């Protein structure tokens, strides 16, 4: 691993000229105009994070363009999940900032995340086991609810239209993800692959501008993966959702992503289109390894 670090240790921009435009605003400390011109939906600026002296992320710059699917890959422990947890406010970075549209945060306020138009799924399932599938999905709209509990109990005022609205939306999303047949089962009783899909449904129903997917296909069978790939692509194309994707399956990543950032030991070692990542001999040698055979959009 050390030799790989030496080879790829230089600034990522040097290897991937295509991304220079996006990199420049990061390096120059951009104004809002540059940000808007690059159409950046989400950005990290010099983000570092460590746990009790162990460095998880070191000076990460990252830009996600509006409407793209950006994958973040890297070996286990590279800091991918830490990155998502910083974006969603679970962790507070030691240094650096997170940019979301016009906002800059030193620490993202978790409870406002949904209002900022960001939804996420979790690496280890985080469904509400005691709620049915449809109620799990509906809870993805909880941030929009404005009726009081008294109104809800009495079934008066705003609560009625809200309830009808969320049920309608949940039904649509469940339909979209082929989950209608299990919508009244308890979420905790479903097989793993379906639970992952319910998580996606819960995130999508919020109609986020940006969707963070933390290993959405881990532990899935090949047919399930193929199905999930289609769902992610459809969410991106049909709703224009910007997607940040963490995934181990290189085939899936190459097939889905518009851009890929490569992390290793908490540092970004590469950033570019799948072709650029795929054709970079050093990335292939050092990290992608045998998976390179599958590069070119075939999938595994």
């Amino acid at each position, binding site marked *: 691993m050390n030799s790989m670090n030496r080879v790829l240790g230089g600034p990522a921009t040097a290897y991937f000229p295509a991304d220079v435009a996006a990199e420049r605003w990061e390096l120059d400390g951009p104004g809002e105009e540059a940000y808007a011109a690059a159409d950046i939906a989400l950005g990290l600026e010099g983000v570092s994070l460590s746990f009790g002296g162990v460095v998880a992320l070191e000076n990460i710059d990252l830009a996600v363009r509006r409407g793209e699917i950006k994958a973040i890959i890297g070996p286990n422990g590279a800091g991918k999940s830490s990155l998502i947890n910083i974006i969603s406010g679970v962790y507070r970075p030691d240094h650096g900032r997170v940019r979301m549209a016009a906002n800059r945060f030193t620490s993202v306020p978790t409870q406002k995340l*949904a*209002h900022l138009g960001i939804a996420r799924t979790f690496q280890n399932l985080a469904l509400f086991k005691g709620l049915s599938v449809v109620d799990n999905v509906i809870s993805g709209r909880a*941030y929009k609810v404005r009726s009081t*509990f008294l109104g809800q109990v009495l079934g008066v005022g705003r609560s009625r239209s809200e309830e009808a609205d969320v049920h309608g939306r949940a039904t649509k999303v469940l339909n979209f993800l082929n989950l209608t047949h299990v919508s*009244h089962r*308890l979420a905790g009783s479903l097989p793993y692959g379906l639970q992952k899909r319910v998580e996606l449904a819960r995130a999508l129903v919020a109609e986020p501008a940006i969707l963070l997917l933390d290993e959405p296909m881990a532990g899935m069978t090949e047919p399930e993966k193929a199905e999930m790939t289609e769902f992610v692509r459809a969410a991106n194309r049909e709703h224009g959702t910007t997607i940040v994707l963490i995934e181990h399956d290189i085939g899936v990543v190459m097939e889905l992503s518009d851009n890929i950032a490569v992390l290793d030991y908490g540092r970004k070692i590469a950033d570019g289109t799948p072709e650029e990542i795929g054709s970079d001999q050093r990335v292939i040698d050092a990290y992608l390894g045998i998976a390179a055979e599958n590069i070119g959009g075939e999938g595994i």
Partner: protein
Amino acid sequence: MPVATLEVSAPLRMLHWLYPVLLLGCAYLIIPIIGTNYLFEAILLPFLALSLAGVGLNILTGYAGQVSLGSAAFLAVGAFAAYNFNLRVEGLPLIGCIVLAGFAAAAIGIVFGLPSLRLKGFYLAVSTLAAQFFVQWALTKFNWFSDNSASGVIDAPLLSVAGVAFNGAVRRYLFSLTVVTLLTLFAYRLVSSQTGRNFIAVRDNEAAARIIGVPVLKTKLVAFAISSFIIGVAGVLWAFTYLRTVEPAGFNLDRSFQILFIIIIGGLASIRGAFFGAALLVVSPLILSRLGSFLLGDLFNSGVLEMSQRIVLGVLIILFLILEPDGLVSLWDRIRKRTIARLKKR
């Protein structure tokens, strides 16, 4: 955990309402006619008050996942608040006193629920003991709450609504039944509303709930407030319809545990469970005392009875946790399903 809601057709949905309606019909029309004084005074009145307290605690602990060991404090707040509103506010009708007592309990509940915003699990459970001890101390210490009575024990006022007096066991029972029915209906609606979904979301995965935009802090405080309101009203029923006296001593730590046991035995996160659990906890000591004196005769004195009740209660809790963690409700549902299946086979 809650029973899965299954897709049911319209006639079955009617059936869903049939049982409670039949039960209520029976409770309102038949029991008042056939019931004995003993049934009302020793069984039904404590049963109704404790069931309602169980419903209240279940909202907080069963649904919202915040374990409270201080329920008796809110019973006490309810009882004493109702007594004092009745005593000190001229011309306030009894219903007004009860509602205000519920609000008083809710306010105290929010105060003692504040630690839940920072604390979780055992730390929170222990911190709810603060409510238990503080409230009991305050009610004992400041005689004003008991209208400066020398003994600290005061008689509950007579119940009357719109000029109709609810004295006598049967009338007190009907009064209690009505209050319990209304609040139970409220609880049913609540747990299937968006607020109820938020409760379960916070219970099952607080971090995820916060990230997807469930207002976690507000949800917890609402749970504490509603739960305390219901328990407070249960306290009024306990003191006004069952004991007919108000005294701090009855609202001790054992009472708090009793209500917790009711929802464990009946079934966590189940409104029906509170009634099942309360029934078992009210009836089993009576059976035990009959059985004991029948088997052991004079050896079975009140001391022995009290101790064996403790042991039986403890054993019941442990057995339920090990063998039937979803409580009597799930046992009941299983038996019912099996019986229906067997009937269909014939």
